[in-house]
């Protein structure tokens, strides 16, 4: 928590940014608490970033450490690029939540906990031999133990819920307290509850009562000044209408906007897999927006389905995560060889193999750029933040349809669920890039190319006079028929490579995110480590270090000016959550002696680690 010597506002200590982590049993409604706190914060006018962390198990036994669910939010009056390394405040609704999350809490941080849940049974389920409230384990922290369970039961008594249902309101009691602590409004939560439980009014009422009770409790205790209160002033932001958006939502909107801009039907084939499934779930609900979704029997079929749809004149989109993407490799080769548009979205997760399905990772860059048999180039783009998913999805659709090529879009488990504020674009004002279907039979063959983009003609079944056959065999450059001619194979191999290479002329030049365009050190990143790198570089700069942040969206082909840009720095550090994949790509492409900053823990990058690495490498 960065405290600022600023004017106290109604007795509140003003801070620039705060990290709160809500944690409890997966049955405690932690995600709802977090989301509602986020909404209140957004409406208040802070910038923010959130990070929900679900347990791997569907419904782990209550009270166990592996059943702990958490939601972290960082919000503030300045630009917030990531959800924070260490919470300033931990809210722990049971002993297991305390056990799992305490190690992350900032030294001297605040712990709000539900004393009523610290029963002998829960302690033992969490694996505590002695009660941490009593054994000194919390010394060094500012502990605020409250019997939230009891207070919640009291508050909702009038509504006649069962004990179980009544206890389920404790997350709203907690929310009430936290909203009070940071001076946020309860209205958005009340609205949400009213709508959510419109069919069961007593639940709406109980939760609202709990919410209010938590708030009132804060006010009451304040008198005794036991609980600190804070003010986090509004952030400056570009004017406009905002909403909180997850990466998944932004992807969906980007695909929709992109296919509308291309005037193509969106046909989506997928097979469930964590953390990619949410994309399928959201799109499946959007039938009235002309979206067709298909749950295939496996990932291969999903990719092939999408390829079939593209052949038929739609934009085929498919999505998966690590192991599932691996299965689509052969089909990708077909799309490359037949030069059909396709968007493959990879929500990366920790591996190899099944790995840690619910944990995030950036390990699939090699797979995306290099992971196919033969020379099989395709463009790769990566999303940096939840809202950025919109733009990157839009771009992927553009590239796929303009260049008749499969495109891989890299996102990850973190972005899928994390949120940030999104300045809503006017979709009507976005550029369009209508796909060109060939209709003229004169001079047609299926591999006749646009001289500028080198894209082949897209003649869709149903078009009279353009009947043709394509397939995965090599074809003659001049007729599109099957060919085994050696020189022709060289020519086709070259043109496939050249087509993708030319995309570099059609994407924005690389810019520098933070810092000057030349200098001592550039920290280069891609994907969801954006926030952490950005924060780290800003902190380093405010500490007087000459560091810049370059963040690459177009992973392949790389932007035309990137080599030149990198040449302007004495040292290049590539920060990524893998063992050095972008690093290898930059080294081989530009022969720059870049070094890596790497973290492979399944968790988002820590700002601290990047910062430390910058410092130590600069000292070298």
């Amino acid at each position, binding site marked *: 928590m960065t405290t600022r010597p600023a004017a106290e506002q109604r007795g509140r200590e003003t801070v620039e940014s705060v990290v709160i982590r809500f944690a409890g049993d997966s049955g405690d409604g932690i995600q709802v608490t977090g989301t509602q706190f986020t909404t209140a914060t957004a409406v208040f006018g802070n910038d923010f970033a959130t990070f929900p962390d679900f347990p791997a198990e569907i419904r782990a036994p209550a009270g166990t450490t592996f059943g702990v669910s958490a939601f972290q939010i960082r919000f503030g009056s300045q630009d917030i690029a990531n959800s924070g390394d260490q919470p300033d405040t931990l809210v722990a609704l049971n002993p297991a939540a305390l056990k799992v999350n305490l190690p992350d809490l900032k030294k001297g941080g605040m712990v709000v906990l539900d004393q009523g849940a610290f029963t002998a049974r829960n302690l033992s389920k969490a694996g505590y031999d002695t009660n941490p409230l009593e054994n000194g384990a919390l010394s060094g922290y500012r502990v605020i133990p409250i019997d939230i369970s009891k207070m919640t039961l009291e508050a909702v008594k009038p509504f006649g819920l069962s004990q179980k249902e009544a206890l389920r309101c404790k997350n709203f009691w907690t929310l009430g307290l936290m909203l009070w602590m940071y001076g946020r409004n309860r209205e958005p939560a009340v609205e949400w509850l009213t709508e959510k439980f419109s069919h069961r009014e007593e639940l709406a009422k109980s939760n609202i009562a709990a919410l209010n009770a938590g708030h009132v409790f804060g006010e009451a205790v304040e008198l005794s000044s036991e609980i600190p209160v804070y003010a986090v002033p509004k952030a400056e932001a570009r004017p406009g209408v905002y*909403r909180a958006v997850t990466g998944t939502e932004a992807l969906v909107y980007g695909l929709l906007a992109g296919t509308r801009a291309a005037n193509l039907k969106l046909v989506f084939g997928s097979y469930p897999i964590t953390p990619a499934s949410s994309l399928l779930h959201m799109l499946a609900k959007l039938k009235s927006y002309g979206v067709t979704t298909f749950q295939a029997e496996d990932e291969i079929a999903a990719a092939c389905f999408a390829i079939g749809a593209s052949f*038929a004149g739609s934009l085929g989109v498919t999505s998966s995560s690590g192991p599932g993407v691996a299965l689509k490799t052969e089909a990708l080769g077909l799309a490359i060889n037949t030069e059909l548009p396709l968007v493959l979205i990879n929500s990366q997760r920790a591996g190899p193999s099944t790995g840690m399905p619910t944990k995030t990772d950036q390990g699939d860059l090699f797979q995306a750029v290099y992971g196919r048999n033969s020379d099989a180039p395709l463009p790769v783009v990566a999303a940096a933040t939840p809202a950025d998913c919109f733009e990157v999805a839009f771009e992927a659709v553009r590239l796929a349809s303009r260049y008749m090529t499969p495109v891989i879009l890299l996102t990850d488990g973190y972005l899928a669920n994390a949120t940030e504020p999104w300045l809503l674009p006017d979709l009507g004002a976005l550029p369009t890039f209508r796909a060109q279907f060939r209709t003229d039979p004169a001079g047609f063959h299926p591999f006749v190319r646009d001289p500028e983009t080198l894209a082949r003609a897209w003649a869709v*079944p149903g078009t*009279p006079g*353009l009947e043709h056959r394509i*397939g995965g065999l090599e074809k003659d450059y001049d007729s599109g028929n099957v060919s085994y001619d050696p020189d022709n194979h060289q020519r086709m191999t070259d043109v496939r490579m050249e087509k993708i290479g030319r995309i570099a002329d059609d994407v924005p030049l690389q810019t520098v995110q933070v810092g000057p365009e030349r200098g001592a050190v550039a920290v280069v990143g891609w994907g969801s480590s954006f926030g952490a790198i950005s924060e780290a570089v800003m902190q380093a700069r405010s500490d007087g270090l000459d560091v810049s942040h370059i963040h690459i969206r177009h992973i392949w082909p790389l932007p035309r000016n990137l080599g030149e840009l990198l040449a302007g720095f004495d040292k290049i550090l590539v920060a990524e959550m893998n063992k050095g994949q972008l690093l290898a790509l930059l080294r081989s492409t530009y022969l720059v002696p870049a070094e890596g900053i790497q973290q492979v823990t399944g968790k988002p990058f820590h700002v601290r680690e990047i910062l430390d690495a910058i410092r130590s490498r600069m000292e070298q």
Partner: protein
Amino acid sequence: MSSATVPDKLTAKDFASDQEIRWCPGCGDYAILKAVQRTLADLGVPRESTVFVSGIGCSSRFPYYLSTYGFHTIHGRAPAIATGVKVANPDLDVWIVTGDGDGLSIGGNHTIHALRRNVDLQILLFNNEIYGLTKGQYSPTSRRGTVSPSTPHGSFETPMSPGSLALGAGARFLARSVDTMQKHLVDVLTRAHGHRGTSFVEIFQNCLVFNDGVFSEFTERTVAAETQIHVEHGQRLTFGSERNRGLRLKPGALELEVVTIGEDGVTEDDLLVHDETNRALASVLVGLCPPAFPQALGVIYCNPAPTYEDNVREQITVAETAQPHGDLNALIRTGKTWEVAG
């Protein structure tokens, strides 16, 4: 590769492409190609809305030789790709050509799921009981004892019955024919095309290089009449050159037996009437084979149900009616929004 002017009524020849055919001389695939071209001409379908999708194999070269749209895809995946084509544009008439390796070995899963989903496709499985293109390894339909490069001491796997598998997977249309039986094949293909939903047609195809004569037990001219039974809905199950043999239910059992009219007091009325909507009967018919029984050919099962893409269309219509012309700008503004003043 294509021609812009379309004659009024296309002939079988009009369905031939300009590509040189690259099957072995004498391969059964030639005859099937001829039958398909004839069928398309007879049906009068437009070339531009007809799509042939295939996997990989000798059989899967098929689309190159037709003047329709075609997609020679990857090994085993034709059903998945064809499903994408059909769901994306249900107005297209989509055929799949596959082999016993392509459709039942590597592609077995896609085949059974296509059948279960009942997308309106015609699946033509050219069963030559061998991997032709890769030079003769045994396939999932090869008989026990098949000596092949990968089974130099003879294979010992139980062959898969394409028909039984299809029924087990929930197929709603199942028919069988033989490469060389032009008229029969055209009839069967016409029925398959007429069926809404996935039609599964097994075509016994002779690979004269690697598995010559493997179906001769019932395809040889001299024995065909006694070893084939041509099933027809509503007709008694008779066969034999004299048409005096037939199948009847074995009393008290779930079994068929071969009987001869006039022998042991059997009359024509004792013979079972083929009911192509009867799944149990289809299951039994599909398992019969010489020498004890005749090989059943023709439309063995046909029992239509709503197609996958009809269902898709319906759900989209319902959704669009409820919320016409999905406004994206409105969509992204659903849920909590807030405004930052300028």
